[in-house]
């Protein structure tokens, strides 16, 4: 079926326009970050970056973010694989209630948990430590993780599991030897999505590590820095913002297909 060439050109123009709009804000901060600090020679420089790095303590913030994100992802993926496996292949007592609670957890606004979380973690003397970020974020990642792994394990052909059972493998063995080897893509996608969410989380960091700069993550560091630096140089703030975005951008370049499918299909499931 033929569609007029002019329509094809019009649609592509529309797409290019939409793409330019999507990229423009990011491109504009990259450009202004390279414009150099006020008073310098006007050429492209990395002064903004070095200033942001030293003044905003972004080196330490990036390290905190990496530590928190990696821990949350690894622990959640392990918990999710175990629970998802059981919910997909065994008759878990109360399984339907568990799944219903997890579905509830998917759309829950964090706002309803933050105040009691603050008091709980204060009682445990964990406020302003890495634990205050890691423990709640594992818990908040559990619903997505478990439901994701559950739907993956439910999609595995029954024959495969039955063959393993006939061969006399235990349930834990068949998870380790039969299912996990083919779960690579599902696990990677889940890990990438959780990494993105954890890396970008702002509200929890604002509330749970308010007074300890050495454990604060990059979104919080950027928020404080840009708030304090409102009157100062825009190039430095822009450079700081680029520093924060860079790790997820790099991950996106390599894993974009996985990330898009994870974020869209994860929602479907």
């Amino acid at each position, binding site marked *: 079926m033929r569609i007029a060439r002019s329509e094809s050109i019009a649609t592509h123009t529309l797409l290019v326009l939409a793409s330019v709009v999507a*990229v423009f804000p990011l491109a504009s901060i990259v450009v202004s970050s390279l414009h150099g600090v006020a008073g310098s020679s006007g050429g492209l420089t990395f002064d903004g970056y070095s200033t942001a790095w030293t003044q905003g303590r972004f080196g330490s913030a990036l390290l905190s973010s990496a530590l928190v994100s990696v821990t949350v992802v690894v622990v959640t993926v392990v918990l999710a694989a175990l629970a998802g496996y059981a*919910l997909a292949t065994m008759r878990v007592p109360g399984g339907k209630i568990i799944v219903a609670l997890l579905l509830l957890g998917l759309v829950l606004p964090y706002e309803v*948990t933050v105040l009691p979380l603050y008091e709980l973690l204060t009682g445990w003397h964990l406020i302003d430590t890495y634990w205050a970020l890691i423990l709640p974020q594992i818990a908040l990642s559990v619903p997505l993780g478990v439901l994701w792994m559950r739907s993956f394990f439910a999609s595995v052909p029954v024959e495969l599991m039955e063959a393993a059972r006939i061969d006399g493998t235990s349930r834990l063995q068949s998870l380790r030897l039969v299912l996990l080897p083919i779960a690579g893509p599902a696990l990677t996608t889940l890990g990438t999505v959780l990494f*993105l969410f954890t890396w970008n989380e702002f509200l929890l960091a*604002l509330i749970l590590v308010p007074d300890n700069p050495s454990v604060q993550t990059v979104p919080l560091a950027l928020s404080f820095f840009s708030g304090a630096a409102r009157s100062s140089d825009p190039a430095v703030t822009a450079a700081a913002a680029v520093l924060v975005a860079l790790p997820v951008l790099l991950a996106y370049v390599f894993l974009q297909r996985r990330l898009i499918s994870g974020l869209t299909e994860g929602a479907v499931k």
Partner: protein
Amino acid sequence: MSTAAPTTGRPTETSAPSATGGRRRPSPLARLSSLSWTSLLYVAPALAFFGVFVLYPIGISVWYSFYAYDGLTVGTPVGWGNYTAVFTDGRLRAALLHSLVLLLFYAALPVCVGLLLAGAMSRIRVYGLTVFRAVLFLPQILSSVVVAVAWRNLLAADGPVNAVFRAVGLGRFATSWLGDFDTALPSIGLIGTWVEYGLCMVLFLSGIVTIDRSTYEAARLDGAGPVREFFAITLPALRPQISIALVLTVTFALRNFDLIWNTTRGGPGTTTTVPSLYVYQDAFQNRMLGRASALAIVLTLVILLVVVVVQLALREREGPRRRFTRPRTPDRKVQSS
């Protein structure tokens, strides 16, 4: 939506073993074996985290919401007082109203833009689809703090947006967009539109590829134009994707703390306040813990309500023939035990 109620008159639909394999159902293997108590060992670690750091705090929030409590002295029970305050306090009502305005920008507008783009793309062969998809999706992966910093620069009094206005001779409209009482809320709304439209489009595109191409060809042979084609084929087929897009964008719109905190903090004045902002301020700055909890509970219930309404309104109906999509089992159907 009376037809959306569980179909008691048609038992075959709910109790027949599903050949298409509903996603939410456990695999047939699970049904053969008996109830397994040791399986709880696999679920326990995840549930422990979820229980201690999510369910328990929610319980506490519900508990606090019935007290006047400042976090230091003993609270006094106030019954439903905090809840009536949520709906009678002028500033909180204003905040809820702002959320409704933002819903238009964060949910309605992105879905419309996404549909328009996806509809146009369904008619042609798109070159560089993967690149377009990746680029349009970009706003989704950025931290909202980064988004806020970028847009604060763009919308500043001497920023690029105003430069464009001046360049085309509309300089009198140039303003400090986020600092002006009249433009702050719509400006934040448009940032939300920018964050969400790519997501909507990517979702809709993934739906369009499942539509049988021959239906388009048949429609064109029958002389249907692009508009007719869109409303007769594309739009009905995208019902599940529209439902997901609305759930995601509406949830994002109603939560919406990060973006506002890092752009306007509710200002100028109280023109851009939203409920989640007051949850934070009442809990951690004004020491009105009971009030903050009640507001958080209301916010949660509103989100749940919207999600349920969207799912019910847009779920695929059985019956009248719609063959444009592959058959799917509707989500969360009545479970046969």
